[in-house]
């Protein structure tokens, strides 16, 4: 039997969809018995929500004021203590999981499998390296706990319908006071979430200004799509950082991805390898984005995109 502890990601109010995808990765282990650990402030609804994930057998709720903010330095020793009873500790490969899990792995004295994308057997996994230009099959040595971040874009979320028991836990560990949470400056969230949207429209450097980005937003609204961007567009200040798609931004797997005025650098393509259909609109017929596009249109975006929005 594989006893797996999955750490939940949430914003205090609701589970992040990455959690249900991480649970899917855990459920792919042979004979998995899955528990979800929720670190949260007092009286959070999140543990009850986690208990509804179909394959989850139990929820370990660690509620305290200290756990109200997602600080890796504070959560890591508690998660490492809970991990005593488990063979596997998984977290999502989101910025939350990437920050937390290596700290947990080090406390447990093991190396980590980053961005787990498939389970071959109980100790053998696949993961991307070199910005996704190679896939490596790795094996974790016997007799060690397996600590991994799960590449959320590789795993469809598990459904609800479970009814796991929620146990209160308070691991007996000393919590550091050297790190203090100050705050989060979050972008406006009226639009579909970039990481889970079925459709995404992204803009690149070619947009030229944040005002011009309205062209992208207008098309996205018509399609009911989330909006993304290339690094160049974020660096230029057209849109905030949380919209960046790629190796160092978000790795996404929408059914439809529309790249507008994006050249298709390796680092950007890393983020969209798992997209269903890729549409590219670029005025340069030689742009590398056309090598991966399912549908390509060589055109000036300032003319073609409003026309497309109009036609839909």
């Amino acid at each position, binding site marked *: 039997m594989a006893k797996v502890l999955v750490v939940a990601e949430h914003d205090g109010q609701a589970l992040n969809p990455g959690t249900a995808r991480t649970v899917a990765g855990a459920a792919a282990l042979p004979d998995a018995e899955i528990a979800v650990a929720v670190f949260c402030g007092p009286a959070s609804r999140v543990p009850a929500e986690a208990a509804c994930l179909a394959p989850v057998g139990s929820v370990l709720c660690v509620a305290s004021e200290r756990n109200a903010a997602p600080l890796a330095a504070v959560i890591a020793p508690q998660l490492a203590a809970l991990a005593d009873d488990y063979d596997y500790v998984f977290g999502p490969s989101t910025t939350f999981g*990437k920050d937390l899990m290596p700290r947990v792995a080090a406390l447990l004295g093991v190396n980590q499998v980053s961005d787990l994308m498939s389970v071959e057997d109980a100790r053998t996994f696949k993961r991307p390296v070199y910005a996704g230009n190679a896939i*490596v099959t790795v*094996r*974790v040595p016997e007799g060690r706990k397996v600590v991994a971040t799960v590449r959320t874009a590789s795993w469809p979320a598990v459904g609800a319908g479970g009814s796991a028991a929620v146990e209160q836990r308070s691991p007996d560990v000393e919590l550091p006071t*050297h790190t*203090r949470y100050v*705050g989060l400056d979050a972008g406006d969230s009226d639009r579909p979430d970039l990481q889970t949207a079925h459709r995404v429209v992204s803009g690149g450097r070619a947009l030229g200004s944040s005002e011009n980005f309205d062209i992208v937003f207008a098309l996205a609204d018509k399609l009911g799509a989330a909006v993304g961007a290339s690094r160049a567009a974020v660096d230029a200040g057209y849109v*905030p950082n949380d919209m960046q798609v790629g190796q160092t931004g*978000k790795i996404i797997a929408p059914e439809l991805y529309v790249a507008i005025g994006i050249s298709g650098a390796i680092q950007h393509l890393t983020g969209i390898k798992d997209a269903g259909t890729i549409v590219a609109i670029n005025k340069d017929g030689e742009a590398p984005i056309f090598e991966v596009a399912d549908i390509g249109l060589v055109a000036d975006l300032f003319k073609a995109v409003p026309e497309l929005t109009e036609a839909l």
Partner: protein
Amino acid sequence: MNRIVVGLKRAVDYNVRVRVKSDGSGVETDGVKMSINPFDEIALEEALRMRERGDAAEVIVVSIGGAEAQQQLRTGLAMGADRAILVTCDAVPPPLDRARVFHEIVKREEAGLVILGKQAIDDDNNQTGQMLAAVWGRPQATFASKVVLDGDKALVTREVDAGLETIEVELPAVITTDLRLNEPRYVKLPDIMKAKKKPLETLVFADLGIETSPPIEELTFEAPPARRKGIMVEDVAGLVSALRDKGLI
């Protein structure tokens, strides 16, 4: 603060289109351009600016790898680092052991701050900084896009999925860099000459007496599945009908 330690990993240049070897034993590195991992250049730039503002006395660059990593350390010295340490080993040890090497150097040098990249763009591990913070028992501020030092504290803005998060950490601490933290300076020719005279110390990994961990074994490498060849359309009307054919609108 006295000293800042910066990690410089020698990695395949970010412009290289990496190919998997036909026997699946790894990726092609013969004749491939090697550079400082881009996030590490940003880490060094940040450390140099701190020293230039008078917040630190010395910047030490550290690389763990073969003798060829001297090249990247020399570049780091040319950018402005004061000293370099090469920790040589036959095969680069796993991230946890690298973190332990950094911990050993931090103790020897009594460093007040370690700045690493958020990830090396070869293995894409994104682990070493967090692991160092754990073994050192100190704060971590990962994916930093802004760092403000204030006495024995640092206020760090972090790029997270939801936006920009700010945390305050007590020093000593580990910071890992994101791309928007700064734009690294270019190296000028006279600096390359000057860098030849700067100290580069070599330590042998096996002599450091570091507890080692069993690495995660890499069995085979394969190329990612290729995407099917797409179609080109003439105009917006063609695009709309192609989308309709696929049932996407």
